[in-house]
């Protein structure tokens, strides 16, 4: 499985309140949530984002609230993968559970810039920045999480186990 797209770049500690502000949590409709994604730190994101685009951020991405609406909004906005130095733990679980690919890679997170053309190979964990001509080795998921992802998320995994 691969992801390939244009990068939207953010800094440290992108919290779930800016990914999807609580004032929109009176809805759980994915499309409606996606229409407000990132608006408090990047109001133009929803206009720029194209299907397949990639989000890159530094440390502790997705910190704060447990709202699953955050990865859901990002995924529904068209983002095919989030690369970060580190993810906050609840966001990490949520992303895997709903099938939003994420990958940790410190160097890639630091060097990749907004607008770069980036490709991720999930089987090998290799991140390629075609704009810069650089490659990075992202951290592969533990086997158990790969099973979850391959099953298509937690609910399918549970059904398959029965």
């Amino acid at each position, binding site marked *: 499985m691969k992801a390939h797209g244009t990068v939207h770049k953010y800094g440290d*500690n992108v*919290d779930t*309140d*800016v990914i999807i*502000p*609580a*004032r929109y*949590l*009176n*809805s*759980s409709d994915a499309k409606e949530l996606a229409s407000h994604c990132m608006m*408090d*730190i990047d109001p133009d994101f929803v206009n720029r984002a194209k299907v397949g685009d990639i989000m890159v951020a530094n*440390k*502790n991405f997705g*910190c*704060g*609230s*447990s*709202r*699953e*609406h955050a*990865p*859901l909004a990002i995924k529904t906005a068209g983002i095919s993968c989030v690369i970060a130095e*580190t993810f*906050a*733990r*609840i966001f990490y*679980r*949520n992303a895997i*559970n*709903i099938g939003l690919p994420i990958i940790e890679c410190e160097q890639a997170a630091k060097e990749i810039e907004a607008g770069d053309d980036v490709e991720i190979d999930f089987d090998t964990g290799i991140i390629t920045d075609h704009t810069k001509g650089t490659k990075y080795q992202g951290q592969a998921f*533990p086997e*158990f999480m790969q099973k979850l992802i391959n099953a298509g*998320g*937690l*609910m*399918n995994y*549970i*059904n398959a186990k*029965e």
Partner: protein
Amino acid sequence: MGMTMTQKILAAHAGLESVAAGQLIEADLDLVLANDITGPVAIHEVEKLNKKTVFDKSKIALVPDHFTPNKDIKSAEHCKCVREYAKEHGIENYFEVGKVGIEHALIPEKGLIVAGETCIGADSHTCTYGALGAFSTGVGSTDMGAGMITGKAWFKVPSAIKFVLTGKPKKWVSGKDVILHIIGKIGVDGALYKSMEFVGDGIANLSMDDRFTIANMAIEAGAKNGIFPVDDLTIAYMKEHSAKEYKVYEADEDAEYDDVITIDLSELEPTVAFPHLPENTKTVKESGDVKIDQVVIGSCTNGRISDLRVAAEILKDRQVADGVRTIIFPATQAIYLQAIEEGLIQTFIKAGEVVSTPTCGPCLGGHMGVLAAGERAVSTTNRNFVGRMGHIESEVYLASPAVAAASAVTGKISEPAELGL
């Protein structure tokens, strides 16, 4: 190799003799929790499962506390979804408006969790119950939904940081100052993926309410959970609130920790976290002249009876400064009633403050006290992210109830000493 307190609870619930940091396990759950924002998403996810019946009607809690009393039509629909699911599945711990309180104050008060148990909640501040010596952690809606049906959740066993608390805090220094100080020291990802295990003789000087506040904000340092040892105070609390049997786990003497940090509670000062991260801490003395528009006292972090008592002690026979709006929101109906009986509510109203029904509303900019552009609030809540309490150009300063109450009187960030207290 020895295990931490958290690891021992997880091992027991996974049916294993021992576990080690990094190990992936599946653990039995004693409580599975959701609210009116995360619940509908979980209920929708559960539809994807072949099995529809819940694992145990007595071990699930559905607490519509965020946008209640219903703030608008969409919120009303969410609450209706949760209410109907609870009815259909016979969920024993569903709390309707009138009985509902802020979940992380309500759950311990109702005795739904005790020491040695495991809990997942689709709310990040589920880590609060670590104050009782339980393993509890926040998850998303899909994990919660899966837990509600299977009674289990997968965990990566965390490593831990040990915080050795010594000494006795000064008057007006509380659990909130302790946890803000710690987050200021280690950062908002200082305990990422880890447990924060609190030990030391200073714990005897912290009330249960202080401990709930400290464990509540473990997530603001990125932690998986925060946990306290069980002492006489914990046992007295559990006996008063719960008929459940508790089990005491202690860390092994040879347990390994990633780091050991000693905090002398007697040296701590009233502390404030400046916008826009809980790690941006300063003591009130270092804060300078920060004028404010609103004060909020309440929430799952600081809406308990001792928080209200401290605020009332400062506000007694004083007035809120001109131009400052002060909102008090007791965390549960029982706390609200206790505050009425003790005359605290009269003190607040006479001081020129408004008292709200229990709700998470103002903490997350939902309703009941949303900020406009350029406005500043001192709040006893837990997050001061961009736009957290309203407009993206508003600012939130996190503080204890004592600092919040003193600031309400002066109209700027202040500590009780500035009022001669």
